């Protein structure tokens, strides 16, 4: 058994930042990641990092923009902590050598981004995520922090009290991809989940193949509620054939959107008469699809994003990477032609419920980054707010797990007996096909930490043996692909009750077929067939929770649009959708949104851009 004070699961931006913070707070910390850290999908982020750095800007304005962008589904204490801390974290990154784009006077450049009242997006060309990821990894190397790379974490080692809020996390179980060894890792202080998003629940996504939502599924099954899962961001500018992202920075620098008639539809058709192309992402994505649906798209599929008028010099200075991406993945010379773009799944606003310190309701279990929901982004994340989320809350989780006192959190976590329960008729039973009513008890939770980890390792070994022993069955990819297609068809930008129900039925069928899933590769060496099969279960958990949330929320808020419910219903719906796994029989309930921060009350207003 491996043993450390703090274990960080995932080696992307949030995981690396958490590990550095825990290390600096004096903890023996290790990162366990299914990829080598520099392969993480933080590296694909392009646009930038929001922080109120300049005179004339303020963290209060950043907080206000974020609350408005969230369509009043974000929790104000999280938003304020975020906006206050982001500037010092950006300076910290600069001190670690991040190659930010610069002004003539040598200071860090900032550019306009969607939904922001001030140009506060710092960036490094159109490759900000790449530079952020490498800068953080370099600092991990500098500190000699241990990295278990290509170790795939499959299970949490958590005690099994009836009430999830009384459980304790003692470690994790992981498979060494190279050798197939299944091993236990004990965490003396805490486990931090930083496993990123779950774009693989969709088939048109900017996300990597590795973004399967493993951490969300593990925390959910261990008893942590997952929050606002229906809130999925569809980025308005992705390349139609691959889903490769074209940064919002193109529009930030002045890029324009056109329909087939050459009209700047954001203005012409009144989608956003003030901000036009720089309206919030949810607004632009809906506008594009409306154009296509009304016959003004190109090839009934996409619209044009044009940046030619910016001139070659400015494009190559600030957006060079976009020219390469358009060329390599769409065959378009963006210096001479407009780029075809359409909305694609990009980001999950929801995730594992945490407070401002990254804590979940399970003692010793933390989450940070895209897999977590603190909730900072609410119903719609602003461009440039994801990367600072990684290091603001990654850092806090790392410090808290290492034992630092960060003060009393304002955000409550965990099951709440008095909470309002959801009253929804599910078209099919969600959750486990055969719920395991009682898991083998580890002495009623009083077992020592080693025993909890050992039991989890044993359970995982048996599970894998069982999977590998099967002689035939259903291939995981057949299951995964059908669910991805169903989600893209029915739980996309535009959502209707009937479609969401169909998606839930597909997911149910997929869960049933998964009972007979079959791993053809019997080798222990680098068995990606086994890994993808295990990941597929996480994809099913995530897809189901998104669809359930989408069906339950009978209003239109932020990224969540419903055909039958065309308005934001503040009287009824300023509340978070919470989902508890309940040993395989999911239960939905609600927690009120905190619109009041430390001193400020954020009054819901209509969103105009």
């Amino acid at each position: 058994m491996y043993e450390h004070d703090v274990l960080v699961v995932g080696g992307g931006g949030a995981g690396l930042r958490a590990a550095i913070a825990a290390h600096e707070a004096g903890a023996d910390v290790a990162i366990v990641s299914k990829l080598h850290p520099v392969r993480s999908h933080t590296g694909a982020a392009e646009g930038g990092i929001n922080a109120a750095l300049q005179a004339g800007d303020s963290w209060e304005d950043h907080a206000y923009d974020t609350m408005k962008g969230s369509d009043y589904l974000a929790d104000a204490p999280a938003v304020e902590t975020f906006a206050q801390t982001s500037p010092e974290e950006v300076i910290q990154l600069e001190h670690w050598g991040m190659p930010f784009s610069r002004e003539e006077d040598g200071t860090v450049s900032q550019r306009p981004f969607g939904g922001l009242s001030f140009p506060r997006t710092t960036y490094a060309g159109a490759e900000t995520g790449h530079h952020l990821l490498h800068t953080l990894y370099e600092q991990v190397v500098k500190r000699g922090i241990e990295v278990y790379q290509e170790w795939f974490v499959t299970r949490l080692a958590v005690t099994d009290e009836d009430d999830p809020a009384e459980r304790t996390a003692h470690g994790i179980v992981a498979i060494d991809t190279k050798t197939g060894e299944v091993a236990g890792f004990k965490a003396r202080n805490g486990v931090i989940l930083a496993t990123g998003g779950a774009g693989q629940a969709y088939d048109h996504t900017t996300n990597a193949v590795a973004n399967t939502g493993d951490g969300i599924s593990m925390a959910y099954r261990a008893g942590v509620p997952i929050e606002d899962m229906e809130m999925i961001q569809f980025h308005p500018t992705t390349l139609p054939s691959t889903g490769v992202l074209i940064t919002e920075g193109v529009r930030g620098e002045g890029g324009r959107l056109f329909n087939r008639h050459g009209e700047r539809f954001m203005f012409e058709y009144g989608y956003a008469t003030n901000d036009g192309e720089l309206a919030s992402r949810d607004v632009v994505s809906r506008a594009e699809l409306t154009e296509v649906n009304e016959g003004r798209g190109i090839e009934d599929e996409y619209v044009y994003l044009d940046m030619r008028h910016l001139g070659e010099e400015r494009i190559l200075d600030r957006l060079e990477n976009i020219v390469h991406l358009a060329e390599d993945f769409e065959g378009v010379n963006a210096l001479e032609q407009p780029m075809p773009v359409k909305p694609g799944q990009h980001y999950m606003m929801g995730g594992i419920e945490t407070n401002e310190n990254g804590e979940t309701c399970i003692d010793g279990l933390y989450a940070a980054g895209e897999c977590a929901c603190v909730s900072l982004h609410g119903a719609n994340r602003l461009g440039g707010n994801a990367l600072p989320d990684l290091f603001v809350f990654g850092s806090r989780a790392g410090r808290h797990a290492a034992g630092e006192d960060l003060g009393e959190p304002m955000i409550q976590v965990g099951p709440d007996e008095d909470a309002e329960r959801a009253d929804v008729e599910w078209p099919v039973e969600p959750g486990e096909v055969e719920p395991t009513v009682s898991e083998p008890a580890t002495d009623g939770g009083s077992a020592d930490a080693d025993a909890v980890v050992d039991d989890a390792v044993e359970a995982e070994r048996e599970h894998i043996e069982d999977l590998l022993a099967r002689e035939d069955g259903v291939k995981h990819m057949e299951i995964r692909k059908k669910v991805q297609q169903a989600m893209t068809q029915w739980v996309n930008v535009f959502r209707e009750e009937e479609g969401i129900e169909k998606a839930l039925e597909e997911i149910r069928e997929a869960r049933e077929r998964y009972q007979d899933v079959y791993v053809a590769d019997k080798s222990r060496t680098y068995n990606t067939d086994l890994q993808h099969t295990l990941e597929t279960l996480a994809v099913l958990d995530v897809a189901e929770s998104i669809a359930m949330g989408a069906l339950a929320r009978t209003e239109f808020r932020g990224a969540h649009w419903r055909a039958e419910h065309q308005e934001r219903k503040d009287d009824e719906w300023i509340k978070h959708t919470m989902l508890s796994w309940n040993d395989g029989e999911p239960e939905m309930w609600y927690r009120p949104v905190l619109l009041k921060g430390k001193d400020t009350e954020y009054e819901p207003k209509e969103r105009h851009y």
Partner: protein
Amino acid sequence: MSTETPDTETSEVASPQTRRLKAKAARKAEREAASEGEIEGETVELKIFRYDPEIADKQEPRFDTFYVPRFEGMTVLDALMDARDRYDTTLTFRHSCRQAVCGSDALFVNGSQRLGCKTQIADLQEPVQIEPLPHRPVVKDLVVDMEHFYDQMRSVEPFFDPDDLPPADQQQHQTPENREKVKTSTRCIWCGACMSSCNIAAGDNQYLGPAAINKAYRFYFDEREGEQRQKERLEIIEQEHGVWRCQTQFSCTEVCPKDIPLTEHIQELKREAVKNNLKFW
């Protein structure tokens, strides 16, 4: 003596680096022109290297042939994924982002190092032969052991480490020119294509190799670090298995999927080393 790449349009002397990159672009254009007239078949023929130390019939390395349906814009990675999902889920290769930034899928395709996700099938002769990166131990099928590459990267102390820092609430300043100077070097995605293509690295296991030297370049020329650190960095790259091993064959520059002028960076560091040594005479 100026060692900078001429950047004005009127300049007539292109650096060797610029010429290489131009030649690379010209060859690509030629391939594309050649493939344009071809009548495309319905399937692509792939010959894929297979090996698994544990599975009886794969212990002896072999090539398997797959036929996958062709589509417009299909990349080598698309073809591999389709072959795996359609015919053989045991087919093993690394991949993640699909957009040439994670650096997972450097492969040996038709005899040269390329990123699978960035290589169009239409640009390749068929059958398309796909092998693991040469000069690396094969773990299974197309997966190689990258540890030695990572060791070499670590050996150049690949992290920003300035002599002094301003207070915690103030940023360091860096001129746009200096940022431009290190720009291409910061684009490395650690794919290992350069190292695999390098004859010197193949013969000298201790040679730092192009990627690691480029990483050293990235920090050596970053004006924020300071003179003391710069001196220490020079000692690392000047060592016996450092920059002097490079014989300017340009193979690393040829295969770099991010078009980093690797050979030029190595030469520039050699010049820095000479300058520094002359100082003490």
